[in-house]
């Protein structure tokens, strides 16, 4: 019984820490830079948001929204990288699913490279935000 009362708060603390990290990770995925913003790293958040959104938009501008092709012939790893930008990319994918925005050749290549690189950069930022959240909660727990 004593063991339970001793480990209870520690377990609750670990649960809270995991929940906090999960929320930061989800925020960072929903909106690029939002994870850092939640951690009060505002400068980092603004830089990350502006750069990733701009890179993604350049990809869409060059190749049109047709480069977001979730159900077509686009390789799965490109789709996965594009989805890492934000779950909202899936909504864009539904818009283009009918094949109304065909894109081929070099513009398609450049568009896919830009949008998937933006997604991979956001993945780096998600991991970094979760790591910073871990450090913050460890500091808080340590006093």
């Amino acid at each position, binding site marked *: 019984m004593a063991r339970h009362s001793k480990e209870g708060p520690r377990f609750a603390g670990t649960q809270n820490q995991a929940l906090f990290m999960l929320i930061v990770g989800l925020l960072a995925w929903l909106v690029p830079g939002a994870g850092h913003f939640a951690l009060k790293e505002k400068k980092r958040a603004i*830089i990350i948001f502006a*750069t990733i959104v701009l890179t993604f938009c350049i990809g869409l501008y*060059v190749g*049109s*929204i047709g480069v977001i092709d979730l159900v077509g012939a686009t390789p799965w790893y490109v789709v996965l990288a594009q989805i890492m930008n934000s779950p909202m990319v899936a909504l864009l994918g539904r818009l283009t699913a009918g094949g109304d925005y065909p894109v081929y050749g*070099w513009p*398609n290549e450049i*568009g896919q490279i830009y949008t998937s*690189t933006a997604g991979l950069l956001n993945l780096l930022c998600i991991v970094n935000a979760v790591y910073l959240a871990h450090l913050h909660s460890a500091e808080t727990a340590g006093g």
Partner: protein
Amino acid sequence: MLVEAIFVIASFTAPKEIGVNPQSMLWLLPLAAAIAVVYKATKLPTIKARNFIKEAAILFGSIIVFIIITALALHTLARLITE
């Protein structure tokens, strides 16, 4: 204003015409810049404008120099094989 907004949105519905030529390789520059900026935004302990721009510029330059060296090596190799 509404018409301008519609034109901007419409520009995202048709691909741009980009020829397969040496100039099209310049599209790697904005991408390398984005990679350098985001990487440094996650790695620097504190973000101060002057230091951040310097670090990002050094990384951007390193990426471009490495790409140029790789391109020259591959070009030389291709020449040796095909001639």
